[in-house]
Each structure stands twice: as structure tokens, then as C-alpha cells.
């Protein structure tokens, strides 16, 4: 028997899946975490850079005050340039200004145009604000110092806001890149962990799939401690179910057996009564009722067998192998007919159908064909749209459309001289229904003679 194809875990994630839940949770968690880190880092950096700037500017302001002297004319002069050379570069964004009422203000060489608002320097305490500068908004510091003659010196120093903004922008950009990389890495790691963690569930899904397809009779494999009890319980349930069904089949068989033997005695007694001519009517009634009872036993037993088997997991029928013993038995049963098994190699398949049911169904059709055939019965297996088709074709008289319509009725017989109870096709139809197959009968088109019964098995 061919091993059934192993089902592969599907890559598509269904909407209601644990995997999707985990991925979405991780995505949310990573996004929130990384977002919070991103926001707080930028804020912290801004504050840190601002504090550094402010501290630096305040130092520069105090250095400016320390280096400022009044010359002979009473105008402010620096004893030496500020230590930071950026105040020397034209329009560098670093500016200072010293003003004394009645004197032209002294400005840094960098300030080739414009002026700083000396209004900021209105008290001996350092005051700062963002004000307009020569090259745009500038963080401006100012304070006053008394000068000889009762005058007040106004010291103002400024740095363009853009420098601070650029630093923050550069930091933000770099931080964003690294945090995105971190987020992607975290997400990928999370997905990998989910896959690893859920792998036993994937294996369980495959084991269940194999069970359903008939590849195994129980859930196979070892599972983690959290899943193992579930698998053990399921296996125990399956075994119990199988046993119950097997027992039910045996009991149904036993019941039929225990009814049929006394029924055979009743039939015999009725026949004797009929032959004796003593009570022909009573004998006829007895014979008819005994025949009906026999029919019902056979029909109900076959139904019980197939409807129980149709729900049995882990059963599989291998085609065309399972047809060989049937054809071989029919060659023995109908020795003057030729039976041909014509199986397409492409149709070799293992189907999740109870072999007892399928062989019952096919046997009924082949036996019927053997009874009616003139000389030859062909049992063919082919791939067909929607599954695999088993066809049984004979070269007998065939059937009319009306006969085909009635053929599957219980007890319908078209030739009373033929052995049988007229139940075969009715049982075949029930089994086909139970196993999800489609049974159809068709007379061969003239000039050919005969009947073709087709069973389309899904899968």
C-alpha cells in the first residue's frame, strides 16, 4: 500500500490563528516600546543639548564680560578675542555684542550684518530668550555690568537656533534608523520564537491531517508536556471509538447471524408447507414475510456497517490494489465470464475511505455485472474531475432509463430468475452516500450493449 502524501503546513496564516495573534501582539508591543524609546530619547537629547548650549553660552557671556575694557575714550574694547574662534567667522551663527549708551556697540567679527537686541540685557542676572538674530532665530543671552561713570554695559551673546535644531535632527535621524533596525530584528526574532514555539502544534495539525486522510490510525509523534496529555486523550478517544465501532459491527453481524439461521428454518418449514399443499396461502405469506425479513436484515446490517465505518478515522483504501481480491473472487464466482481490471497508473491513490465499505460497494457492482454480462466485465479506475472514478462495465442487456430510475429501490429485481434479494444497488447507493461518493448508472450507447456503473470518489 502506498503511503499517503504528507500534508504540508500551509504558509497562509488564517485570520483566527494563534500565530497571527502572537505576531500582532509582538508588533504592537515592539511598536509601543520602540516608539516610547524614540520619543523619550529625542526629548532627553534635546534637553541635554540645550543644557550644554546654555551652559556654553553663559560661559562665553561671562568670558565676554571679563575681557571687556573701556578704552581712553570710554568705548568698550576686548583685551583679546573670545576663545571660541566661531565668533570670528562671518555669519557663523555665533555672535556677541557689547553696548554702552553713547558709544557705538562693539560686535563680534562674525556679525558682518544685523544686530542683537540689547533689550535682553537689562539686569545683572543672566537672561536668555530666542530672538531674531543676524541669520535667523537665535538663542540669545544677556546681562548688564556697571561701567565707570555710572554707565551700564550691556552684554549680549547669541547662537543660531538652527545649530541646535540640526544637532537634534541629525540625532533623530540616526536614532530612527537604529530603532527601526532594532524593531525589525525584534519582530523577526519574535516570529522565529513563535514558529519554534508553535511547531508542536503544526506537527499536531499534520498528524490530525494524516489521521483524517487515513495515513495513520492514531496521532503519532512526541509532543511537549503541555500538549502531550491532549494528544494522549485524543488517541484514547480514537481507540475507544474504533473499538466501539468494531464491536458494533461484530454485534450487528452476530445479530444478523442469530436471526438468519432461525429464519432459514422458518423458510424451510414454509416451503414444506407449500409443497405439501395443506395450507398454500399460509405458506405463501410465511415465505414472503421471511423473504422480507431477510431483506431487511441484509439492508439494515449493510447500512449499520457503512454508516459506522464512514465516521471511523484513520482508515484508508488503496486503489487499485484493493480491487484485485474482488476481481479475483468474481472470476471464481462467475467462471464463464471474463473480468478485466483496467487501472490507470495515474489513478493509483490512497483515499480516506474505510476499505470494508468501498469493497462492499465495488463488490456489489462487479457481482451484478457478472450476473448480467454476456461474456465480459471491465473494472476500470481513472482520474476524473473531482476525484477518482471506478467504473464497472458489462456487456449484458443493459437497462432502460426507467429501470435505471428504479434500480436503487429496496427489493427491486428485474429478473426473478437471477439469484439475489434485489438489495445490491440499494445498499450500494447507501454506502456511496455514507462515504461521500457518487454512484451513477448508464446504459451503453448503441451499438454497444451493457451497463456502466460509475462511482466517483472524492479526493
Amino acid at each position: 500500500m502506498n503511503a499517503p502524501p504528507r500534508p504540508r503546513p500551509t504558509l497562509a496564516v488564517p485570520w483566527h490563528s494563534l500565530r497571527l495573534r502572537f505576531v500582532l501582539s509582538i508588533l504592537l508591543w515592539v511598536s509601543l516600546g520602540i516608539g516610547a524609546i524614540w520619543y523619550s530619547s529625542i526629548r532627553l537629547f534635546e534637553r541635554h543639548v540645550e543644557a550644554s548650549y546654555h551652559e556654553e553660552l553663559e560661559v562665553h557671556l561671562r568670558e565676554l564680560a571679563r575681557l571687556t575694557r573701556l578704552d581712553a575714550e570710554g568705548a568698550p574694547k576686548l583685551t583679546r578675542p573670545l576663545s571660541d574662534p566661531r565668533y570670528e567667522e562671518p555669519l557663523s551663527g555665533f555672535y556677541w555684542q557689547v553696548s554702552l549708551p553713547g558709544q557705538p556697540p562693539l560686535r563680534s567679527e562674525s556679525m558682518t550684518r544685523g544686530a542683537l537686541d540689547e533689550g535682553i540685557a537689562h539686569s545683572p542676572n543672566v537672561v536668555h530668550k530666542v530672538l531674531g538674530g543676524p541669520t535667523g532665530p537665535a538663542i540669545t543671552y544677556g546681562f548688564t555690568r556697571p561701567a565707570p561713570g555710572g554707565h551700564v554695559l550691556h552684554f549680549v551673546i547669541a547662537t543660531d537656533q538652527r545649530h541646535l535644531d540640526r544637532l537634534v535632527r541629525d540625532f533623530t535621524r540616526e536614532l530612527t534608523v537604529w530603532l527601526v533596525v532594532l524593531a525589525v530584528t525584534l519582530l523577526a526574532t519574535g516570529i522565529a520564537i513563535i514558529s519554534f514555539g508553535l511547531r508542536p502544534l503544526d506537527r499536531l495539525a499534520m498528524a490530525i491531517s494524516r489521521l483524517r486522510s487515513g495515513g495513520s490510525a492514531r496521532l503519532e509523534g512526541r509532543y511537549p508536556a503541555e500538549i502531550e496529555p491532549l494528544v494522549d486523550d485524543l488517541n484514547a478517544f480514537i481507540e475507544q471509538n474504533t473499538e466501539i465501532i468494531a464491536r458494533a459491527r461484530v454485534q450487528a453481524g452476530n445479530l444478523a447471524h442469530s436471526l438468519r439461521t432461525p429464519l432459514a428454518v422458518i423458510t424451510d418449514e414454509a416451503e414444506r408447507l407449500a409443497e405439501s399443499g395443506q395450507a398454500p396461502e399460509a405458506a405463501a405469506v410465511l415465505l414472503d414475510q421471511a423473504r422480507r425479513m431477510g431483506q431487511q436484515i441484509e439492508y439494515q446490517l449493510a447500512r449499520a456497517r457503512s454508516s459506522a465505518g464512514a465516521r471511523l478515522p484513520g482508515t484508508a483504501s488503496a486503489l487499485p490494489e484493493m480491487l484485485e481480491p474482488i476481481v479475483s473472487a468474481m472470476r471464481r464466482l462467475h467462471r464463464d465470464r471474463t473480468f478485466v481490471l483496467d487501472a490507470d497508473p495515474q489513478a493509483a491513490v490512497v483515499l480516506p475511505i474505510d476499505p470494508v465499505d468501498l469493497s462492499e460497494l465495488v463488490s456489489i457492482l462487479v457481482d451484478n455485472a457478472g450476473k448480467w454480462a454476456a461474456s465480459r466485465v471491465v473494472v476500470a479506475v481513472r482520474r476524473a474531475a473531482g476525484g477518482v472514478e471506478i467504473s464497472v462495465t458489462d456487456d449484458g442487456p443493459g437497462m432502460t432509463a426507467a429501470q435505471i430510475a428504479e434500480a436503487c429501490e429496496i427489493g427491486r429485481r428485474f429478473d426473478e430468475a437471477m439469484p439475489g434479494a434485489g438489495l445490491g444497488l440499494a445498499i450500494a447507493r447507501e454506502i456511496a452516500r455514507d462515504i461521500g461518493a457518487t454512484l451513477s448508472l448508464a446504459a451503453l450507447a448503441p451499438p454497444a450493449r451493457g451497463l456502466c456503473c460509475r462511482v466517483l470518489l472524492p479526493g
Partner: protein
Amino acid sequence: MRLLLVEDDAELGRRLGDRLRGAGFAVDLATTRADAEAWPEMEHIDAVVLDLGLPDGSGMDLLRHWRGGRVDTPILILTARGSWQDKVAGLNAGADDFVVKPVRFEELLARLNALLRRQSGQRESALEAGGIRLDPITREVTLDGAPLQLSRQEFRLLHLFLRRAGHVLPQADIIEHLYELGELRDRNTVEVLVGRLRRKVGTQRITTQRGLGYRFEK
């Protein structure tokens, strides 16, 4: 024709035995697998009617035992288990036909005779030779078209002769095929029986082959 009927149900066994005897067969009855397996003189049994459900084992195993031991007697399974799984297994184990209980006696008889006919290579259901026609199902015998009344033993003997028409039948073979196990057997009885049959079918039809037996001339 001598049959072995293997049936554990005493009532059904008795009834079937009576019916088959009435149809012209000598019938031996075995009620267990052990009895049937150890049945003496299997080579003289012309056909077996076998029930599959026996109290001490499966009739299927018995079937395999016989076929494994090269017993080629036609075997008809008569069972209350009617699934095709059982039928296919039985046929593939060497059974020649399969009948499910309850069965009308005529059908059983027809199937049994069909097996015997097949065994002897005949196609027609009635046996015919030398102007005599014997229908084993209806038990009608005609001589040149006229009905012929025969006793049960005479019918059995004629049936045996017609199945082996043209062949010499040793007296011992006639005894084995005509009498059931345990029935009183006497060579003189056979001679008397052959004599009676000769008178009814014509002396020229059954010739004595001295020291060998009898032959029914075709």
C-alpha cells in the same frame, strides 16, 4: 452424489439434510469444525456445503485447510454472514460459490448442481446420455421423452452414471458416492440396485465390465 454438509445448527442441519436427500444426494452431516476437518473419505465427497460460523472455529480456516491439503471438491459456502468482505475472502480462499441464509431450497439446489456440473465439465443443467435425460433440480427423469419413475437410490445411481457416462465406475466408488457415512454398505445391494435400474432404463445401457465395475454407455 454424496455431499458433506457442515452446519452447526442441529435443526437447520437436519432439515437441509432431509431436503438434499430428497433431491437425490447422499448427505453426511458434520456439526463442528473438528469433525469436518477429520472427515474420512473426503475423496468420495462430491461437494461440500459449508457454514462459516462453527462453534469450535471458523469455517474459513476449514476451507483453507482443505484447499491447502489439495482437496478440490466443489465447496459452497452457506452462511448467515452476508458481507462481501466475507464472500470475497471465502471465494479467494477457495470456495466455489456463496449463498447467504435464509435461502430458498431451489436456489441452493440450483447453485449446488451448477457447481457439480461445472466440476464435470457440463454446461447444461440437465444430464443427458443414451436417450435418458435427468434434471437434478426438478428430479425429472425421461427415457426417450417418456417420464420415468425412480426410487431415491435409483435416482442417485443414475445421476452418478450420467455424470460419468462412458467411464467405468468401480463398484467401490459407487458405494462411496451413494451411501452416507455410517449407512449399511453391501456389495450385493449395489448389484441389486444396478439390476433394478437396468430393468427401468434398458439393460444395454449399463454394461458390466468384469472385474472392473459398470459403465453407462453413451
